[in-house]
């Protein structure tokens, strides 16, 4: 009979029920969309920020004093330890290899370009490499497994610094290390009067190389005063067979405060083996740096603090903002649902009085009305979840250009919230209506 009453009460009072259903639906869809976005926004922000360049600097571990200005070493390459660029593919074998979004080696020297002292930097523009099937991949602390398939990757500044703008074209050629093409920074190009298609002559320690300028580079930074050539060209000019003075890496990392509480602020040396394993398998800056140093012996990996700190601070601000907006929206929609449910119950005071007059006790009336409110809450919550997923998708596309994934794990929470606001909205007026002797309620009508 309860189900029968429920069916009739919901089915025959369509207009009123539709209003309450709509209020719950909107609240649930807002909750789904905002909670979904606020949980995935951090990850997305981190990915977005990776588009703004490297956040890790890898240099040879050395006791020697080097002269560096703006990350460029002014010590002659022949007098400084260099990183072997043929080892760099190992960055894609570490535990967090999928979080390594890009990297590029750099070798800088101060050469005479068309008679002017200019920083010439050798790098990879777009460097393709392959990890063969069977390559050892780290799977946990001290554990490795063979790669099941051959994988192709692309490294280089083109992917690492997507905001670099080239007027003309990027240097081409098979494995651009062999090319005789280069880029010239826009400030320097103006100063030297160089256009795309011109050639420039570079002289260093008695060696000379000529490259064709394929494009003028604009970055908004110091790169606009430099010449960029293939790494091999810079190595020839410097008189070294191979090597680079630094490697910039772009890695997806989470702020340290995402670590479990007991690991936060703790040095890996102070951790128990179990804690170390948890830390090692967390994509935080410290563990990624540790894994890079394990993969490339003899290097020092350190965060580019400005970027890392700005990223962490920006991400936590965005997350806080998303949380505040979510809470405000949830509060407002909960109020709307509660008001609707309150009106719905108040309108039915006479009905409650009739039920009591014909023998219903308080518990029976409460069960009837709360079951109805609960069913509305659950149905509205379920429909709202579906709508919220679509809304989250749409917002993701509008804001980030990609749909953000909102998992099924939000469903129980959204249903619980919908149920709670529907029941809470009904409870107050129901208590009041039940507490009124039926004779007063009937007389009032």
């Amino acid at each position, binding site marked *: 009979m*309860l189900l029968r009453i429920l069916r009739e*009460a919901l089915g025959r009072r369509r207009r009123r029920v539709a209003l309450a259903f709509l209020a719950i639906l909107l609240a649930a869809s807002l909750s789904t969309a905002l909670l979904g976005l606020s949980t995935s926004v951090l990850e997305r922000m981190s990915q977005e920020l990776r588009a703004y360049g490297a956040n890790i600097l890898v240099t040879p571990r050395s006791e020697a004093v080097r002269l560096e200005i703006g990350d460029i070493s002014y010590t002659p390459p022949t007098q400084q330890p260099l990183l072997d660029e043929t080892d760099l593919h190992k960055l894609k074998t570490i535990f967090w290899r999928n979080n390594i979004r890009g990297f590029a080696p750099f070798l800088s020297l101060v050469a005479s370009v068309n008679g002017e002292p200019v920083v010439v930097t050798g790098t990879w523009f777009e460097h393709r490499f392959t990890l063969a099937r069977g390559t050892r991949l780290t799977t946990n602390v001290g554990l490795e497994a063979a790669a099941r398939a051959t994988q192709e990757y692309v490294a280089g500044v083109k992917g690492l610094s997507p905001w670099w703008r080239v007027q003309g074209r990027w240097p081409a050629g098979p494995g651009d290390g062999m090319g005789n093409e280069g880029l010239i920074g826009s400030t320097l190009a103006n100063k030297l009067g160089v256009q795309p298609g011109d050639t420039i002559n570079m002289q260093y320690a008695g060696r000379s190389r000529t490259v064709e300028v394929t494009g003028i580079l604009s970055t908004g930074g110091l790169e606009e005063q430099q010449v960029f050539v293939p790494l091999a060209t810079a190595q020839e000019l410097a008189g070294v067979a191979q090597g680079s003075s630094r490697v910039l890496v772009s890695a997806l990392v989470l702020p340290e405060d995402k670590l479990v509480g007991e690991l936060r602020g703790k040095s890996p040396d102070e951790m128990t083996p179990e804690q170390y394993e948890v830390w090692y398998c967390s994509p935080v800056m410290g563990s990624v740096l540790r894994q890079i140093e394990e993969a490339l012996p003899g290097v020092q990996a350190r965060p580019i603090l400005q970027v890392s700190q700005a990223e962490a601070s920006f991400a936590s601000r965005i997350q806080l903002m998303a949380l505040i907006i979510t809470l405000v929206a949830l509060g407002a929609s909960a109020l709307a649902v509660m008001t609707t449910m309150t009106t719905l119950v108040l309108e039915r005071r006479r009905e409650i009085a009739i039920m009591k*007059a*014909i023998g219903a006790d308080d518990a029976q009336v409460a069960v009837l009305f709360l079951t109805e409110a609960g069913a509305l809450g659950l149905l509205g919550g379920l429909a709202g979840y579906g709508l919220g997923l679509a809304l989250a998708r749409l917002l993701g596309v509008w804001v980030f250009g990609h749909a953000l994934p909102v998992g099924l794990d939000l469903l129980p929470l959204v249903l619980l919230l919908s149920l709670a606001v529907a029941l809470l909205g009904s409870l107050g007026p129901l208590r009041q209506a039940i507490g009124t002797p039926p004779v007063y309620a009937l007389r009032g009508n």
Partner: protein
Amino acid sequence: MEPIITAHALTKRYNGTTALDRVDLTVAPGEWLAIMGPSGSGKTTLLNLIGCLDLPSEGKLLVAGTEVSRLSGKDLTRFRRETVGLVFQQFYLVPYLTALENVMLAQYFHSIADEAEARQALDEVGLGGRLRHLPSQLSGGEQQRVCIARALINEPKLVLADEPTGNLDRANEDLVLGLFKRLHEQGHTVVMVTHDPEVAGLAQRTVHLDHGRLAEAVPTASG
């Protein structure tokens, strides 16, 4: 025989106004009593107290051997649904439930809803063909008959009716009063509030209320 209703010095006050003033009354089992009086004389108040819809401010009220003036909350509700069947002037049916479901609702609150029994009750008041109709699809007389079927479905010892024909035309009034006559013949105790002397004339006894006080007891022609 022990009276089914015994009221002694029954008093009800609403915000300082005395609606019922020290009323003494007894009703025998199987009796049909009419309560008459002008508007505001306390007729409905007395009926509500007997029907356990309200509690007296003072005095003693025994219904079917239970001192209901000392009951409260859950006990009063339980006693009401076990003992009393109520028929209202304005019918008070649940608007979104059919005639059949309105009767079954009273069964559900009492014990278990039995559709066959509810159908039979509606059949007995001449509504066998209107089971699936909503109150809004029924005439006033039909709604009142649903109300009577609902009042009787749990076989109460006492049937209380507040102006049951007040909202009906002549034809429906006759139909409804015919049902009350039949109830009385079957041995039900009926207490009916009315301001219509012709309706009161069907009862065995009529009491008059004036300004909350019992004026006189008049045996009627049928009594």
